[in-house]
């Protein structure tokens, strides 16, 4: 994004807030605080990209993934990198799928409903106004009638259904499963971005996960960040935070970061840590910070993200179109559930390298069976879920013994399903398989998969059992705030990014002293 004309601060200036990370958690905070007239500086570990350079290629897109090594343990080790972790100005929103369901009201009080999981320290009514603000600002396309929330209105008409969405929709109709055009943070037509440039309508290229070339897909660098810069925020790319200074009362007085091999100190009055559910706890653990509760790193969650694939007689050419253009929320609370919570379903079109990786790694094909299956790429379509994961003691992020190039210990993340996830997964697998059978698919197979990075710095009402309060403020260090997926007490069935943005705005309002 264009940064050449932005306001700049000296490291000796005591800025009001340093925001660490420019993804879905940091960018809305930066924009809101800048709009309120605060002096704000964002430090981004990755580079600043011109989206026009993104090249419609999975391998060239490696530049927007966080590829520093993490160690994955537990009974269902999670893949990072391209699966869920980004780098660059805009963070993981450079590569996210832009699938923007809201949290289901019931998921926020799962413990009250089922005795399992936890309740959030806030309710749907606390979030709804922020959801609406975010959806209007970033330009979410969606159906005119949302079957699972009839009062909801999306600002833009839906993007077209691609092959997998069409075939899934027909089969779900036959089975009595309701579907709808997906809520997607992809503008279906040209969209004048408030505070930014005109965003061109989606061209159905299918490369959402490789970086959007024309700004149709919401990423922070075409939405909140230009807005922030237009209001005087400074964004410093290639700046990796690895330390802080504190005063005698324990308040943070400056943030230490490395740029071009040289350490700098930015003085500040407050810090927003927005580095995601892996790097945020990693930095806190590295610094021994804000962990009086012992909760930093605990209750790591990835979503149950199983996919079911099938081969179709007709050509799907699933690379074309918005990849997940059909949604069903019918399984958020299925009648025959033997588990707490539920799952969303979406149609799937996946590009060759990602799909081939699933076939070879996940399905386990090799030899002639692999190459013959790859040759049928144009006849494939998938369905995937995003399913509730309950917090669990065994799922934890710790610092490994190995260190990275900055001398910081690498993150080791242990993650595994418990019986609730196993039962949910079995239900989802049966449902998706039935849909593909109804659709006439052959060679139906199941890809076990974990998605997203959630938890590790949970919000709560007490510093004894939580890292931050319901607005993201540290219980321990009064000028430290956290805004990213790490604060989620439970995973929710919904994909996290929209909720991260809504929570970010809510947190920023609290920071500004506006009660909500």
């Amino acid at each position, binding site marked *: 994004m264009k940064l050449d004309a932005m306001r700049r601060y000296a490291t000796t200036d005591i800025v009001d807030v340093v925001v660490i990370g420019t993804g879905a958690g940091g960018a809305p905070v930066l924009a809101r605080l800048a709009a309120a007239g605060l002096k704000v500086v964002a430090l981004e570990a990755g580079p600043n990209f011109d989206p026009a350079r993104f090249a419609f290629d999975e391998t060239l897109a490696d530049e927007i993934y966080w590829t520093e090594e993490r160690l994955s343990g537990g009974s269902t080790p999670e893949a990072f990198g391209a699966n869920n972790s980004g780098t660059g100005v805009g963070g993981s929103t450079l590569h996210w799928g832009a699938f923007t369901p809201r949290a289901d009201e019931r998921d926020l009080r799962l413990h009250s409903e089922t005795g399992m999981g936890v309740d959030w320290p806030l309710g749907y009514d606390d979030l709804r106004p922020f959801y609406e603000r975010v959806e209007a600002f970033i330009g979410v396309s969606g159906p005119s009638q949302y079957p699972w929330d009839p009062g909801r209105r999306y600002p833009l008409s839906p993007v077209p259904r691609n092959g997998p969405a069409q075939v899934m929709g027909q089969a779900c109709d036959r089975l009595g499963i309701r579907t709808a055009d997906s809520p997607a943070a992809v503008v279906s037509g040209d969209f004048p971005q408030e505070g930014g440039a005109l965003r061109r309508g989606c061209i159905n290229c299918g490369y959402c996960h490789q970086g959007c070339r024309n700004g149709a897909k919401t990423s922070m660098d075409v939405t909140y960040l230009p807005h922030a810069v237009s209001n005087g925020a400074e964004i410093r790319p290639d700046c990796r935070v690895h330390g802080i200074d504190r005063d005698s009362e324990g308040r943070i007085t400056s943030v230490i970061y490395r740029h071009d091999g040289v350490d700098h100190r930015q003085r500040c009055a407050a810090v927003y840590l927005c580095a995601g559910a892996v790097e945020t706890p990693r930095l806190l653990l590295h610094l021994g910070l804000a962990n009086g509760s012992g909760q930093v790193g605990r209750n790591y969650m990835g979503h149950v993200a199983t996919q079911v694939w099938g081969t179709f007689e007709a*050509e799907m050419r699933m690379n074309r179109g918005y990849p997940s253009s059909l949604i069903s929320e019918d399984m958020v609370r299925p009648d025959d559930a033997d588990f707490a919570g539920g799952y969303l379903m979406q149609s799937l079109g996946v590009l060759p390298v990602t799909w081939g990786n699933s076939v070879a790694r996940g399905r386990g094909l090799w030899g002639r069976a692999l190459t013959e299956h790859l*040759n049928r790429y144009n006849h494939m379509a998938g369905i995937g879920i995003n399913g509730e994961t309950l917090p669990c003691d065994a799922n934890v992020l710790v610092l490994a013994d190995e260190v990275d190039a900055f001398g910081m210990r690498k993150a080791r993340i242990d993650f595994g399903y418990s019986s609730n996830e196993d039962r949910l997964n079995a239900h989802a697998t049966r449902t998706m398989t039935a849909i593909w059978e109804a659709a006439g698919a052959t060679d139906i197979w199941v890809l076990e998969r974990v998605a997203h990075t959630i938890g590790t710095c949970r919000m709560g009402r007490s510093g004894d059992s939580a890292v931050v309060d319901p607005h993201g403020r540290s219980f321990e260090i009064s000028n430290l705030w956290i805004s990213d997926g790490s604060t989620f007490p439970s995973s929710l069935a919904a994909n996290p990014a929209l909720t991260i943005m809504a929570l970010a705005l809510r947190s920023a309002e609290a920071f500004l002293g506006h009660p909500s």
Partner: protein
Amino acid sequence: MPNSPAPHTTIPGPCTVVCLHFLGGSAREWEPVAALLDGVARIVALDLPGFGDAAAVSGYSVAAMADHVAAGIAAADPGGRWYLAGHSMGAKVALALARRAEDGAPDLAGLAGLVLLGGSPPSPEPMSDDKRREMMEWISADAETRRRKAGEFVDQNTGSPLGEPLRTRAVEDVLRASPAAWTAWLRDGSREDWSRRIGILRMPAVVVGGTEDADLGTAAQKALTLPHLAHGRLVALDGAGHLLPLERPEAVASLIAGLASEEPLLKSEAPTVPEPYRALIESDRVNTRLRAALLARAEPDGSADRPVYLDPVELAQLRAVVDRVLPQDGTGRIDIAAQIEARLAAGTGDGWRFAKLPADGAAYRAALRTLDAAARSVHATGFLCLDGGEQDAFLQAAAAGEPLSHEVPVDGLDAEEMTLWFEDLRSDAVRIYLAHPASLARIGFSGIGAGGDDAETLPGFVRVGIGDPEPWESSALQKSSTLGETGR
């Protein structure tokens, strides 16, 4: 003789072949071959230090022997294009010289190919300690023992007994060898590890093994020497033992003549990108950055012959595994293993690894050791010498989490680790495979055509539904857009 070796046998011919003998041999072991090549090639057979007429010359390390030969080659003035034939010990010296030549040594300019006969490999030669010790003992024994043992040595190293006068002369050669040179080779030279120094040579090479050669037969050549030769060809001489120039002069002469008549190989073959797909790549539907990347991927892999992290034998083993995981039909092939190797050397990753595995490079090396150890344990030969079905059986065991053999090498991976590594390998291989434009064409992928350079006017896709290709998609992917020959 002083340190100026003279050519022993010189036959004028259109091209020169410099020949290096085995342990206990001498330049005259090449006389039968030279006679057969009379008029076809000029044979320059040299005595190595400590042997034949050079028995008094010292300097027995592989490097010192190579220096000695380089001087002999310069003295022989081999001309613009010449070849090097090495037998057993002489083959290791020949490999060292070939590396120098490919690195641009001016005194070795023009070396155009290798013939390696029962060659001692770049890595330490497989030989039991007992055998080494016994050979070192009798070479300095009394005359009667020496004569008896030299005869046994010649007889043990032939598939069937040599005729006369070849046998007598071979025994005489052993007896006139310097015991110091003989011992130095057994103790040191044969155990010098030249594997990484020699690396992978690009010049054409014929690697010959006798099927009755216990230690340096075809299996050892395939497992230990062939991996060092990007354009090497293995030839088995049925029924022959170790003394190939003496046992099979006709076959050896014919292989030398054949190599000398071949055109030099310069490039590995890359898979062909079909013309309509190439036209799409060149069209304005593909952006400049992507076009450059796709065309670069379509070129043969330039790093294939210079492994940095893996040694050449490990790289050959990895190629063998990848061939089973991702068989490539047709003439050209993507050198997936070399690209994996390059990534391991660069130390770049994809953002995570299984906590149960060591770092990627270490995991790959340990996995290859485990496969090779299992092959030796179950089949008494290296993984490279197994047929595809035998290799598959080990990979199936790895995928299933079953032990590959009864014992895991101490520096290997256990069954669970092998399962995880094999998952990583499949992932690495398929991602490289599907980045190649020939693979994208094969699977009928049209996504590269989503748009050119102007981000404001990208065409993208207008049609996104079932069975509704855009006209340009159909023409770019004429051959690949149906289920194809594999059917369902």
